């Protein structure tokens, strides 16, 4: 998010199921391209939402390390599932992004043509609190870092966030450990809580004045004490199911003080270095560029694409790859995500969404790995110094 938006004054309201449909219609009416969860290929992924019927109504999911299945719920919940493999990253920081084309004009000259960045209003509908937190992390890195990323900034310029608090965490989720869920108080334009007790309805709070304006245009009821209690019940029930933990106590010192821990070797035995964890991670931002030419030799294009610290080419400098073992690559990923990210960006790179656990083809679980290192860490390891962030100095 950019500058803190003015705090809205609106009190919580309640939307009916029809109200949810009207909210979506309102967004379309205001020219938003709406993206949200939808069922495709037996999973819940992000896609365009034309109407509420596009939402995964009645669907839930079952997630364990290396395992995801869509399951039919016993109710008609619109948001009765945890996060799927896609995230807002796919839209705001696309997998492939043309940057520019060079066209030869005559023998000696060429012109650089910047890739077009279409202006659009984007609304994310139905993001979980952890997903909103992930956008905040990417904002920190790509908007408020040392250099602003032009592509991300252009995509992020006019984005509306409609979040839905989480009532259906998966077994791979650990948002409580990262303080990113299951509920949220701010960070989105509208924050919904789906209430399934009694009448199927949605408690809605405005997180920004934009959200407030939207609410005013929709027919709604004031929230009652029962509605507010029902929300508390949803969150308490979700929290009770969030059993997975990542103990973040001095995690920087723990990981950086254990760079030679034998556990890294054990992980490397299992790790496929396939890069899935980094590509499903909603905050991982590493890219490379690919240059291509046409057969006539008159045009060259540069495209940016997602890369991963798990690929050999990623650290290919001079004659070879610097991190040429899987051990070195996994360790780089985990220590960056959970420790040195804090040095760089004053925040953890992890939001506890659990995607890297579910979508690892061999079910490697970072919470288990950190726990193993913690339990077998030697007490006398030399702590790695916290590196002052250039952001702090600036």
């Amino acid at each position, binding site marked *: 998010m950019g500058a803190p938006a003015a705090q809205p004054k609106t009190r919580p309201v309640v939307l009916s199921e029809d109200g949810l449909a009207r909210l979506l219609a309102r967004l379309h009416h205001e020219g938003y391209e709406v993206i949200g969860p939808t069922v*495709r*290929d*037996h*999973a819940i*992924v992000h896609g365009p939402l034309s109407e509420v019927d596009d939402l995964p109504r009645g669907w839930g999911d079952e997630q364990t390390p*290396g*395992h*995801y*299945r*869509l399951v039919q719920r016993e109710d008609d919940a619109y948001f009765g599932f945890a996060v799927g*493999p*896609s995230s807002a990253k*796919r839209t705001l920081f696309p*997998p*492939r992004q043309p940057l520019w084309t060079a066209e030869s004009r005559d023998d000696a000259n060429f012109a650089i043509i910047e890739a077009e960045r279409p202006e659009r209003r984007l609304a994310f509908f139905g993001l979980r609190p952890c997903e909103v937190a992930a956008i905040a992390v990417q904002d920190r890195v790509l908007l408020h870092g040392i250099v602003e990323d032009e592509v991300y900034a252009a995509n992020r310029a006019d984005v509306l966030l409609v979040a839905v608090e989480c009532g259906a965490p998966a077994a791979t989720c650990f948002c409580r450990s990262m303080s990113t869920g299951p509920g949220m108080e701010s960070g989105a334009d509208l924050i919904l809580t789906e209430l399934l007790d009694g009448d199927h309805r949605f408690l809605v709070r405005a997180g920004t004045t934009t959200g407030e304006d939207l609410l005013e245009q929709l027919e709604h009821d004031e929230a009652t004490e029962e509605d507010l209690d029902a929300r508390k019940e949803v969150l308490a029930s979700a929290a009770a199911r969030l059993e997975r933990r990542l103990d973040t106590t001095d995690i920087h010192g723990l990981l950086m003080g254990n760079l030679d821990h034998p556990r890294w070797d054990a992980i490397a*035995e*299992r*790790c*496929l*270095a*396939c*890069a*899935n964890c980094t*590509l*499903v991670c909603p905050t991982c931002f590493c890219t490379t560029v*690919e*240059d*291509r*030419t*046409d*057969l*006539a*030799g008159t045009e*060259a294009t540069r495209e940016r*694409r*997602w890369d*991963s610290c*798990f*690929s*050999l*080419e990623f650290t290919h400098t001079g004659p070879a790859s610097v991190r040429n073992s*899987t051990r070195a690559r996994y360790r780089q990923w985990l220590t960056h995500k959970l420790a040195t990210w804090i040095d760089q960006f004053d925040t953890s790179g992890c939001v506890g969404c659990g995607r890297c656990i*579910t*979508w690892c*083809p*061999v*079910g490697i679980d970072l919470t288990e790995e950190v726990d193993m290192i913690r339990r077998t860490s030697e007490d006398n390891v030399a702590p790695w110094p916290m590196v002052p962030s250039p952001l702090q100095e600036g």
Partner: protein
Amino acid sequence: MTGGIGRPTVAVWKFASCDGCQLSLLSAEDELLTIAGEIEIAYFLEATREVKEGPYDISLVEGSITTPDDAERIRQVRDISTTLITIGACATAGGIQALRNFGDVEAFRSLVYARPEYVDTLADSTAIAEHVPVDLELRGCPIETSQLVEVINAILAGRKPVTPTHSVCVECKLRGNLCVAVAHGTPCLGPVTQAGCNARCPAFDRGCYGCFGPAESPNTPSLAAWLEEELALEHPDLVRLFRSFNADAPAFRRESRRHEPEEVAT
């Protein structure tokens, strides 16, 4: 490489193979006429009977080495080629015919042919790189036309071709494919297979069957253990999974050997 020298001469050679990879060049329909303008096809029997004498700037070599004659012929091809590029699973790993490397060629020969003594064959089907130095290998069964065009493009421009060696998983995620292994429980070689096909099979709900051969750091033992424990594949399934078009690529060969019955394992 021949970057900047104008119109390079190109020869296309066939060894033990099905011709599918050569055809990939002819299948480059949109680019074919432009390609023909930018390179001089000097030797390409699949396309034209017109043959120009070597040496050649670029040789594209399809097929594996399976006979003593071919073992000699590939050395001659190397001698008259500035750049030698192998195309496809046969040329880069021995191909499907490398299944013979796991069996007894003498037994096959005596059973299959009426006059076995007429068949002059080697015991193994081997990759071109086991016989001569190779400048670039293009994987796949068959190769991906777009990769071949990219390599020709790169040679003409004097730049490095974009032919990543990471896993197929990267292509699935770039493309937005759902992971068929995690979400459907489909056995998939994608995590240990080299990219290049744009994740074609997973895009059609099929597991990757590894036709591009092992990726840059293929942890096949870990994947095989997961397939066995979580997806209930048995040893014969694992042997078949790893033993197909790239059966003799070292990582896949070792993995399929690991799951053979002990009395047969060598």
